[in-house]
């Protein structure tokens, strides 16, 4: 990116200089904070049995208590310790976002590379399907489908979200595949008789790792927020302990109107921080790698 314009005007020079400095330091800071946050959540999820002061499902505490030394975030209206729920809620939230991210990227990578590599009629059909799914209103579809399936499990929800969110990645990956295909090393590989499978997995895929990773984290961000929204609406699995279901029960018990901010604010903050972790990693990767990638996407 820095070699784009060898001679430049003062303004562009300033931009370029800043961009150079920016691209080396800032994204690293962004990515580092993001990775740090994510690791903290993973640790919280793994250590939940150790850290959590009480069982998240035990209902024997005083009902609807405000924060106290015994219950740092108070208790729910049915007498559960909110801090314990929050700590245990990390597990399903991490789980569902990473699962959704993985499924979505698998589909996106498969379709994107296939379309870019084969071109012709298969490309046309795949891109038509991609563009159609792209214009479907995904949040509406996700809500409707999860309402058709009563009490959908987390894995089902992951699949539903993946079903409507793969096209973004597929388009970017197809564009990058087309770009890589014009490079000499891929041409050489094809000329030397490597089959499509080998070209896809050994030549093209390793060279777009950062792109796939950035998209993966972006999908994770989308999944965290979407799953929480669904659970808040009472769709999906609201009886398991998760951040979204805490919010659902808080809202159901009018936590806001009785001023129980300790019930209602922390899960939202947790979702936001996990989302921010994914976003920061995504931006970090995006800025570290070639920014032209974005402009080449259709």
């Amino acid at each position, binding site marked *: 990116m820095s070699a784009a314009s060898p001679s430049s005007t003062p303004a562009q020079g300033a*931009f370029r200089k800043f961009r150079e400095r920016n691209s080396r330091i800032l994204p690293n800071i962004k990515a580092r904070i993001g990775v740090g946050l994510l690791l903290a959540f993973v640790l919280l999820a793994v250590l939940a049995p150790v850290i959590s002061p009480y069982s998240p499902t035990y209902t024997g505490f005083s009902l609807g208590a405000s924060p106290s030394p015994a219950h740092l975030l108070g208790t729910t209206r049915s007498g559960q310790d909110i801090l314990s729920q929050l700590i245990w809620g990390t597990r399903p939230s991490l789980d569902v976002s990473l699962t959704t991210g993985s499924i979505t990227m698998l589909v996106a990578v498969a379709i994107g590379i296939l379309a870019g590599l084969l071109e012709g009629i298969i490309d046309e059909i795949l891109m038509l399907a991609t563009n*159609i799914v792209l214009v479907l209103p995904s949040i509406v579809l996700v809500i*409707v*489908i999860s309402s058709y399936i009563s009490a959908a499990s987390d894995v089902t929800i992951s699949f539903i979200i993946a079903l409507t969110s793969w096209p973004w990645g597929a388009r970017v990956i197809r564009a990058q595949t087309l770009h890589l295909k014009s490079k000499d090393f891929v041409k050489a590989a094809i000329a030397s008789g490597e089959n499509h499978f080998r070209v896809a997995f050994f030549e093209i895929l390793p060279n777009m790792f950062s792109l796939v990773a950035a998209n993966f984290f972006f999908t994770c961000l989308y999944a965290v*927020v979407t799953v929480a929204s669904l659970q808040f609406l009472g769709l999906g699995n609201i009886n398991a302990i998760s951040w979204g279901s805490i919010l659902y029960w808080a809202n159901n018990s009018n936590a806001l109107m009785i001023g129980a901010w300790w019930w209602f604010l922390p899960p939202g903050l947790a979702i936001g921080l996990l989302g921010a972790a994914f976003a920061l990693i995504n931006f970090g990767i995006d800025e570290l790698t070639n920014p032209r990638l974005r*402009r080449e996407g259709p």
Partner: protein
Amino acid sequence: MRYLMRRIIFYVVAFVATITINFFLPRAMPGNPAEALMSKFGGRLNPLALKSIEIAFGLHEHEPIWNQYLQYLGQLLHGNLGTSLAYYPASVSGLIGTALPWTLFLVGLSTIISFVIGIIIGSISAWRFGGAFDTFMSTFFTFTYAFPYFWIALACLYLIGYLWGVFPISGAYSMDLVPTLSGSFVFNVIRHAILPSLTIIFTSVGYWAVNMRNTTITTLAEDYVTMAEAKGITLRRILLRYAGRNAILPNITGFAMSMGFIVGGAILTEIVFSYPGLGNLLFQAVQQEDYPLIQGILMIISFSVLAANFVADVTYSLLDPRVRVGGNQ
């Protein structure tokens, strides 16, 4: 014009695909929602409602699926979306007709305001690239983007609406008022719209700002900007009259596309603020398993998204001649 023809064909295909998905979706679901519905409502349904479910779900099992599909298409062509179960005997199209204007008003207006503010912030960020304003805004938007919308909305509702009591917290107008075109009623409607509108603007302005900032920065690297600078034109003028115009192009397309999501995109806003729009109606339908209504709303939402995308394509080809030339190759 070949470009436009291609796009028109695409949208026709996409629309048929959407209708087809809408038709097959409930039929493909495990546990057959139609049967569950029949057992739930039992003998309490009257013939018209029954007919409506039959069409939505194809309960005539003896009829081949193709016939059912054609019947469904026929009903759609006559603008007949069926009868609602939860709000029986209201028709689905009637319910949608009542809810749609509220959504268009609230979300449409909020989106326009958000777009304008976002473009201004984005331009300033690009102008002061790397400065304090830019850094602050970028960081700030990372967070508004990551937090779940409904939670921010609830927090605003709690703080501004409940604790401070500045704005009404639910509905589109006070329940004791009769909708008229009087000044006091209009004022009441606006007062009710401010809080939900603020939350939409707050959470969506970052998207426009970041996009505008990035496209402007990209545009500033173009040769004609260098040329303008060589001529000694001030940076401010370059940003406003040279780069800004071109940088705003992709954002206008994005704006047109987002108009399509207005109809379906604010489900959570309407639910949190009990706003009587389409999103709220959909949620009610989902909760009460009113399948004909769900199907009808899904249909309307898909249609408006496609229509808005088409408008976006047309606008872009009008504004940017390169698209038209590219289509002729």
